């Protein structure tokens, strides 16, 4: 039997000083090659959970397994298995796309030849070939988003964690990114995605989990959930389950 892409068991976590969201006896399973969406209002714990899965935060209790590898025990070797696309631009603006990919490719464990090959491929796919040698600081928001994605997938990760990968981009870039993500998924990459762009999420995700204050309040196939709650779209489902009050009171 294939291991799960992500297997979270009895997760316990809280920020120091009791501020922010906390998780207690939290469980979540994401199957391999799934297009999984993680949604919830601000402060629900989406980004914290993403950080716990990628090792940016350390869990207090329980376990997180990535493709069967315990993140606590495997330490850095498990990081080869996944890619992470943070919400913030995570590259060096002083460098060109080629130079960024060269550096992050090396840090992802690739060799020079492979980096060159992947760089050419990715820049072509994401429409950055023309600006391959220009400093990133001069790029538009859409170009930066595409580069952010390219860096995260240069080492062909088996799981891709995406935190708001299309925030602040035009429709063309959004469509290009979503199509590319679907393409990656067709080739077996598991997508773990979070966003406030619910229409985009409907298009991309097959399965979703709705989080609120560190707890899963709904978790199933999107179509099943919509039918179960008699909603036509994700936005209606979201409001139905989480209410209309402001939720970003955690500082």
């Amino acid at each position, binding site marked *: 039997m294939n291991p799960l892409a992500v297997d979270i068991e009895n997760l316990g976590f809280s920020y120091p000083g009791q501020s922010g969201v906390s998780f207690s006896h939290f469980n979540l399973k994401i199957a391999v090659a799934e297009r999984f969406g993680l949604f919830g209002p601000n402060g629900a714990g989406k980004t914290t959970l993403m950080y716990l899965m990628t090792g940016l935060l350390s869990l207090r209790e329980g376990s997180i397994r990535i493709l069967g590898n315990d993140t606590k025990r495997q330490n850095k070797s498990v990081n080869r298995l996944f890619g992470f696309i943070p919400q913030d631009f995570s*590259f060096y603006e002083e460098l060109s796309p080629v130079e960024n990919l060269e550096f992050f490719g090396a840090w992802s464990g690739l060799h*020079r030849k492979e980096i060159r090959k992947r760089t050419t491929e990715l820049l072509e796919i994401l429409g950055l070939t023309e600006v391959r040698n220009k400093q990133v600081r001069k790029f538009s928001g859409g170009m930066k988003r595409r580069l952010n994605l390219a860096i995260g997938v240069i080492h062909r990760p088996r799981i891709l964690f995406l935190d708001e990968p299309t925030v602040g981009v035009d429709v063309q870039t959004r469509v290009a990114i979503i199509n590319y993500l679907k393409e990656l998924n067709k080739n077996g990459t598991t997508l773990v995605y979070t966003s406030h762009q619910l229409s985009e999420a409907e298009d991309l995700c097959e399965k979703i989990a709705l989080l609120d204050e560190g707890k899963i309040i709904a978790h199933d196939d999107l179509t099943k959930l919509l039918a179960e709650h008699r909603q036509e779209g994700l936005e209606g489902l979201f409001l139905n389950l989480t209410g209309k009050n402001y939720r970003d009171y955690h500082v």
Partner: protein
Amino acid sequence: MYKLWSTIIKDVRILTRDKVGLILMFGMPVILVIVITNIQNSTFELVNKNKTPLLICNRDTGEAGRQFIQAIDKIGMFRLQSVPKDQSEKNITDRMHAKDALLAVIIPPDFSSKIDAKAKKVAGKALNTFGLEGDKPGTAGDSMEPITLYYHPILQQTFRSSVQGAIYSALQLVESRQILKTLYFSINEKQLPDTLENDMLNNRLTINEIPISLDGSRKVPNASQHNVPAWTVFAMFFVVLSLSGSIVREKLNGSFIRLKTLPTNYILVLLSKQITYLAVTMAQAAVIFAIGVWLFPSMGLPALNLPLDSSGLFFVSLLCGWCAVSYAICIGVFAQTQEQANGFGAVSIVILAAIGGLMVPGFAMPGSFRTIMKISPLHWCLEAYYGLFLEGGKLKDILMNIIPLFIIAILIQLITLWGLKIKKLI
């Protein structure tokens, strides 16, 4: 190895594209070395070669006033400008405010008569001591109006002290001459012959000044030998502005989050920065030394003489650079913001330079500071460089400066490692 190489290449690319950072690391220290050496050299020349303008107002009508002026002139420190005797003190000070001169001496009207009276009193006492009959000791010299020395407030205490010493020695000469003449006249009842006067007063023993050195070269140190090593050390430690800022910037921007999710240890980032910036500090030293050797002479400054032990110079520069880079990384790891890193970094370097003896020599510091200075890595860097540049020493001669520097660098590295652990960066 390829990861480290890629990281170094990345750091070099970012560094070379940061024009302001490069100016801070190379341009500013070069300007600092040139300016400070020029200033110190002109101070040196002010005392030794250039003469300080001095206004002299002789209100005395006798011989002693003229002899006093001649004696001051003979010292060689001053360019004398006579001022009419009826010139008011306000006029004189006004001329000084206009920077016509930085010093003024006013010889009082009764100078000769009082010197004469004092000489007679001293000579009389001396003759009485010998059992000869001399003039009865009078009281004429006791109420002599003092010589007035005006000085411009820009003159520092050390220079004023040397001026005062020079003027006292001129006064001493005039008084001695007059006492000698009076004594001679009292004994021989004739004037002291000029030749004898010259023999007695002017044939002084000379002082042979020899700088000590470990290589026996006896080269006289100049302003460049003092300043270039000192400000090179300062420049090396000033990489703190660029390096600690770069670490904080990287911690705060998104790239850090990505780096932490990749299968590589963050310590590689710091290792790369150590190598890159160590090369920067070595380049800084090379540029500043090259300027000292080749550019200074064309600017009218004394050329920098490089130590004969070039491997010693390389090793000391390497160790100083490593210590500077370690310090900058340590600040970068602990600082939360770039403002913290830059502010603390810059101020702490100035303080460490001050207590380390870069601004005021260690021997001139109060006793308690001489103990504190030992915690400053800049002090040990400077001592090691001075051992090579000023004392003509070799690496083995400066081991006692290198060992503490090495220990300080290791301690800083350990503190950095501890900082990385408590901040969960590794």
